[in-house]
């Protein structure tokens, strides 16, 4: 099928291109042009035409947590947010530690024909941090990387062996840097706000000590490590130095941590109960700056739908996480505007940057690339409200915020999978 997207502002972060023009799509891919009359034409006048977003962390809650969200509701949310590819962490119930589960998830996702789903397999059985999973089998079933989600390996010897084993096959390992014993029992950044509110704290060095361990193990094993959800300024500095040294490391940051800090906890707003915790204003600024200078490779929604009952609890007892698939684009635009970045730069961490980590051809607009595209109105603002979100999770600290950037059309492999009603 031939599709012509006409007269939009074409923004390609991979090349820096930003100009009004047409995009030609044929057989699911972007092409230079075609001679015949297009079977479908989309008028993109006044809209930005960009690569579809790639979100490296979105929980779909299947299998196991269908009462929080279903694959269908979250895939709807993804395309409504302009997300055309997403990687899902293995913390489902049961965790993604067996090829059968991964295979089923991929087939269910494929049948829904919305965003592309890239499962991230469990690094250890049941994420318990004790026995390695059959990584080669899992990779064959479709796992693109291996991770412990929010349950870092406590035993450093197991972590070392897991990284050795993954490196043997060249599998990337995606890990959060958090020392489990230092983080144990904590629910907020160990600082002024937690002290005032009487909340058990997680010190910043819970992250940097674990990151130090990870970097040493990268040196020892040569394992390719992507560090997930940095939350501290010191960790950004450590990654900057590690990259300079030439270590095969990359990292991401959750979009909430780019915009919010411990101050946003206010009077115990459980929507701000996140993993890792929101940290100081200084940390937030370092993360936002690191994303702009490329030290931080990409930003993720860390989408975690939580039902309202689990949030209407005292802060420490509330389930952590925030919904984010539908907020990722506007929050990236907001960050870009704050940093005064050109649009192509503002979108790079969720398109070309994320594609590089994932090792896929999407995330760019050029001949031969998959036609995964988003058309959005960059100027239209909307008020975040539960009824505006398709995700089953309405849990976001941004409720009531006025955000600019509304998705009009989302295209995956040349097919329109979402149109703004």
């Amino acid at each position: 099928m031939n599709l012509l997207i006409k007269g939009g502002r074409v923004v390609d972060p991979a090349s820096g291109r930003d100009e009004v023009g047409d995009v030609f799509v044929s057989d699911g891919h972007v092409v230079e042009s075609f001679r015949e009359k297009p079977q479908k034409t989309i008028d993109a006048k006044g809209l930005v035409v960009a690569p579809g977003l790639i979100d490296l962390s979105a929980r779909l809650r299947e299998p196991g947590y269908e009462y929080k969200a279903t694959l269908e509701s979250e895939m709807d949310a993804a395309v409504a947010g302009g997300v055309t590819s997403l990687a899902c962490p293995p913390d489902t119930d049961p965790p993604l530690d067996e090829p059968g589960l991964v295979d089923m998830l991929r087939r269910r996702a494929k049948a829904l024909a919305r965003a592309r789903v890239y499962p991230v397999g469990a690094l250890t059985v049941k994420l318990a941090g004790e026995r390695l999973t059959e990584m080669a089998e899992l990779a064959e079933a479709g796992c693109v990387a291996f991770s412990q989600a929010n349950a870092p390996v406590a035993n450093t010897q197991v972590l070392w062996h897991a990284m050795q084993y993954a490196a043997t096959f060249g599998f990337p390992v995606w890990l959060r840097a958090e020392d489990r014993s230092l983080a144990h029992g904590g629910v907020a950044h160990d600082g002024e706000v937690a002290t005032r509110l009487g909340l058990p704290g997680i010190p910043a060095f819970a992250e940097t000590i674990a990151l130090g361990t990870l970097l040493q193990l990268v040196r020892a094993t040569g394992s390719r490590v992507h560090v997930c959800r940095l939350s501290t300024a010191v960790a950004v500095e450590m990654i900057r130095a590690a990259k300079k040294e030439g270590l095969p490391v990359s990292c991401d940051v959750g979009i909430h941590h780019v915009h919010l800090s411990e101050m946003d906890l206010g009077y115990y707003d459980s929507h701000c109960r996140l993993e890792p915790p929101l940290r100081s204003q200084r940390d937030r600024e370092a993360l936002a700056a690191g994303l702009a200078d490329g030290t931080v490779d990409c930003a993720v929604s860390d989408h975690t739908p939580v039902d309202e009952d689990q949030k209407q609890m005292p802060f420490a007892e509330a389930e952590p996480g925030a919904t984010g698939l539908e907020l990722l684009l506007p929050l990236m635009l907001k960050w870009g505007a704050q940093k005064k970045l050109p649009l192509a730069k503002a979108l790079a961490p969720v398109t070309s940057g994320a594609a590089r980590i994932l090792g896929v051809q999407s995330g760019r607009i050029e001949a031969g690339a998959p036609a995964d595209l988003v058309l959005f109105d960059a100027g239209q603002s909307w008020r975040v409200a539960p009824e505006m979100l398709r995700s089953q999770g309405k849990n976001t600290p941004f409720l009531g915020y006025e955000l600019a950037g509304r998705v009009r059309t989302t295209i995956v492999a040349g097919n329109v999978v979402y149109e703004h009603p």
Partner: protein
Amino acid sequence: MPGNPQLNANGELQHLLSIEGLPREILTQILDTAEPFAGVTEREVKKVPLLRGKSVFNLFFEASTRTRTTFEIAAKRLSADVINLNVSVSSQSKGESLLDTVANLSAMQADVFVVRHGSSGAPYLIARHVKPHEHVINAGDGRHAHPTQGLLDLYTIRHYKKDFTRLTVAIVGDVLHSRVARSLIHGLTTLGVPEVRVIGPQTLLPAGVESLGVHVFHDMRAGLKDCDVVVMLRLQNERMNGALLPSAQEYFKHYGLTAAKLALAKPDAIVMHPGPMNRGIEIDSSVADGPHSVILPQVTFGIAVRMAVMSIVAGN
């Protein structure tokens, strides 16, 4: 951030959740209101009709005898009906959510909820969900706040020392886990105490405690020097032998209040303790029962202060 959830649109006390964020005028109003009530407790007939026809629900998700009892006495002296609910052993064990429990009690026509909960911030959650005519009084939440204890401490200090603006106050012990300490610190700084000190080992002081406006001392002798008021905090049994402290003996040696250490404070210093006391661990018996101790008057004042708070938020 939303406005202060404790105050109504006219800036009056709607709930008492924390001393932090309350203006000096409201703290003074509570202390002034408590003065005549302290007299009521001395009278033959100890009742006043300010809360006649009102229902006070004591909602304790965490065990407590002393605080619950003093709230009960205070409510009864105001002629309220008091219903005690020990929730920790009823609905919570059946899996009912906190808000469901509150909604059910609200349907039974409550006017005041006195809430104690193990989780910091729980009374804020309840206050956000009660009806406009219902009031929440925090009787202790996690490590966060115990505002009526803080107020009775302020009342005691004012009773013995009159003027807050010339005092040096030391708070000694486990500040990390103490809601009493946090409430008192906010009260003292709001009322203009120029020097508030916290004394304890690093393991028992929270991160960035200086940001609350206190001076930190690890050496108790240095910290007690020239103090007007010494507030001892209770050390929980489970914290005595572990990663925070090696032993009760070593703790007492360095942070227990003895007559010799107290001699470093001003000659007319008063000694306070929120109770229950661990004699021989944080305080020596000779000090607890000695001439500087105002620990028992604190309990008596506690009833007057709780009467004042309830009559201000819910009085006829």
